[in-house]
Structures are given as C-alpha cells and as structure tokens.
C-alpha cells in the first residue's frame, strides 16, 4: 500500500509536483489525500491512517501534537505569502484609497477564524487601518480555494488570497500584488504515529527530500518561501 499523505488543499499542486519528482528518484510514489486542514484533522482524530499531515497553518498540527498523535512536533514546510487580487489596476493606485472606494463593492477573504490567509489578511487590513471601513464589503470563503473560485467567477472586485494562486489560470485575470508581511504564513507538517517501519523510512526520505534544491525550487515556483 502506498504511503498516504494528508495535504491541505492550498498546497496540493506544489506537493503533487514534489511527490512526482520524488517518485522518479525512489520506487514508491506516495498518494496525496487533499482536503481542508480542518477536515483532515477531524479525520486523523477519528482514525484515518496517514503518514504525514501537511497543514496550511501550524495550529492544526500543533493540536494533533498536543493530543500525542504525532511523532514529534510540527515542522515548517514552507511559508505562504498573502496576495491581493483586484479587478482594477493596482500599480499606480494607492490600495488604501482603492479598497474603501466606490469601485470596489465586494471583497473576498477566507474565514479569518479558520483560514490562516484570512487571519493574515485581517491583520494586514488592521495594520493599514483599512479594516473598519472595508469590512462591510467582505464576503467570506471557507478557505483560499473558495476565494480563488470567487475570483474566477468574477463575483467579487477584490480578494485576499495566497500568492500561489498567481501560478494558476486565474493569475491571468485582473491585477495582483503580493503583500509584504513578516515571515509569511507558516505551513507546518507532522509525522503521525502508528506507522510501519517501511512507512517511517519512506516518510523520513520524503522529509529529507523537501529540503533538496529541487523541492525548494518547486515551492518557490508556486509562490511559497522555503525555510
């Protein structure tokens, strides 16, 4: 049975590419199970058999660690970057004027309570002192995946999402700007308990592979910062 890795949806594509290239060097090709971090956490808590859990944040892995379901503490795989998408050109405009303006009617954001990108967006808005004027325009997605879907449907005028989305088809749409923040959003992973010896071995090999230049290049290509 191939190794099964639980991956937060927003990291699905880069991980797929890394795993593919990993499989070219090794015999085993791990299987990715992609869902939102919260769903994966609930499944792990209820007996799902995964070798590795890669979350879009550090909170879920941390919870699992505290529950002693993991083999060691969370480690950071990559840092995500927050990006602002807008229907209208951003280059020459002051975002602080544009966002509260009449042109922008709806702004999509991931649920700040669940999604780290949402939380980060709120933090950024507060830092810019925009939050209080802008919040009535907000519509919420379950995660950045949903926010991206809203961008694609053309249902919103602006959106806070992951910079990695620029690498996909919606990168061609509208105008993008990566927002500066300290360090970015940590995407952490944990190795889970109850693995066979062979599974543990492959997992360790994969963890090591994440640190190789190939993997780092892939992560960066997709808009993440490798640690």
């Amino acid at each position, binding site marked *: 049975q191939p190794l099964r890795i639980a991956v937060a949806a927003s990291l699905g594509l880069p991980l797929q590419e890394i795993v593919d290239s990993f499989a070219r060097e090794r015999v085993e090709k791990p299987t990715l199970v992609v869902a939102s971090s919260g769903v994966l956490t609930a499944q792990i808590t209820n007996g799902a058999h995964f070798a590795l859990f890669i979350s879009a944040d550090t909170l879920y892995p941390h919870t699992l660690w505290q529950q002693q379901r993991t083999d060691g503490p969370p480690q950071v795989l990559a840092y995500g970057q927050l990006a602002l998408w807008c229907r209208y050109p951003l280059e020459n405009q002051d975002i602080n004027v544009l966002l509260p303006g009449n042109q922008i009617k*709806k702004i999509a954001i991931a649920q700040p309570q669940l999604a780290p990108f949402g939380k980060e967006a709120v933090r950024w808005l507060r830092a810019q002192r925009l939050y209080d004027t802008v919040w009535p325009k907000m519509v*919420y997605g379950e995660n950045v995946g949903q926010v991206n879907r809203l961008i694609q449907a*053309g249902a919103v005028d602006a959106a806070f999402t992951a910079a990695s989305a620029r690498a996909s088809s919606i990168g061609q749409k509208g105008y993008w700007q990566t927002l500066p923040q300290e360090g970015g959003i940590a995407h952490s992973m944990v190795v889970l308990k109850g693995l066979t010896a062979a599974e543990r071995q492959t997992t360790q090999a994969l963890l090591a592979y994440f640190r190789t230049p190939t993997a780092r290049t892939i992560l960066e290509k997709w808009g993440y910062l490798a640690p």
Partner: protein
Amino acid sequence: MTFSWEPLWLSFKLALVTTLVLLLIGLPLVYLLHFRRGRGQVIGQALISLPLVLPPTVLGYYLLVLMSPENGLGRWLDDWFGWRLVFSFPGLVIGSVIYSLPFMINPILSALEGVSTVYEEVAYTLGKSRLTTFVRVLLPMVRASVVVGAVMTFAHTIGEFGVILMIGGSIPGETRVASIAIYNEVEMLQYDAADRYALVLLLFSFVVLLGVYTYQNRRTARVI
C-alpha cells in the same frame, strides 16, 4: 465565533421563504409537466433532477457565474434593475429554489400519475378548465405528496451548505446561515459549539416535522 441565534434564525427564514417560493413556482411547473405528456414531459422531468448530480459547491459556482455582475444575466439585472443577487439573501433563495426543485416537484408529479383520469374528465364535463381542475381537484387529491415535497424542501434548505456558501459569501447576519456556522465550528475543532447548533437544528426541525406529519395524518384519517 461562538453560539448565536442569528444563523439559526436566518436558516429558518431561508427555508421558509424557499419552501413558499417553491410552492409558487413548483406547482405551476408540475401543472405544465403533468399536462404536457410525451417527450416534453420526459425531458422536463430529467432536467429538473439534473442539478442534483452536481456537488453543491460546483452548482453554486455555476450559479455564481450566472449571477455575477460580470456576466450576462447578472450584468443585465444589475444594469436594468440594480439588483445584485450574489452575496444577498434573495440570491440564496434563488439558489436554494433551484437546488430543491426536484424535491418539491418529483413526489407530486409521480403521485399525480396514480390518480385516475376519470376525475379530470368529470371536472371537464362540469365545465372546469384545466387550471381549475388542477388546483381544485388534482392537487387536493395528492395533498400528502405536496406536504412531503414541502417538508423535504424545508429540511433540505435548512441543511444546505455548498450552494449557499458559494453564492452567499457567508456574510454574518445576511447570508451566514446555521449550516455554515456549524461547519465552521467543526473545522475549527470547536465541537461543543457545533454540537449545540446541531442539537438546536435537530430539535427544532423534529418539532416542525412532527407537527406537519401529525396535521397531515389527522387530515388523512378524516378523508378515509
């Protein structure tokens, strides 16, 4: 986010409005499909159940594209009436109506097939139009199925999540209904709050369903 009554109230309002709207839209559709025999009826019936085969979020996405002010219908509504359906309560109602359409229509339509045509014929010889016959004779004869259609619409709308999330945007007090609130709690591993929402939904719906079926049973007993 902790427990609040607002999403529950919104869910109830949405379910009620959707059910009423579906009665208003669904019954005329049943009328058309029932009297339009043959190929038209078959295609109509198949089309009505079609939205069901799409995962709700996907259906929601397509509805979003349709209603988005960037595209055809949405822009037209925006330009002419200034209506924005996306991320608004009326938009939710539209989405729920489309999604629950088969639950309302199919049971009634199939029950009508079991009604002997002789009652239609009597009504016609009594000078009644098709419409009168439908409203005064056929529908009352399949009342149980109308009730079941309404009940399933109501319950399904209370529990609807994917479509609403997509086209509603989860705006607190406007489109964040109980199903979204409860899902968020689960995702946040806040199982206590989730349980509380779920319990309220279940209890409340159980009472509503019990009431409807008791009433329904009493009426039926009187008929037979």
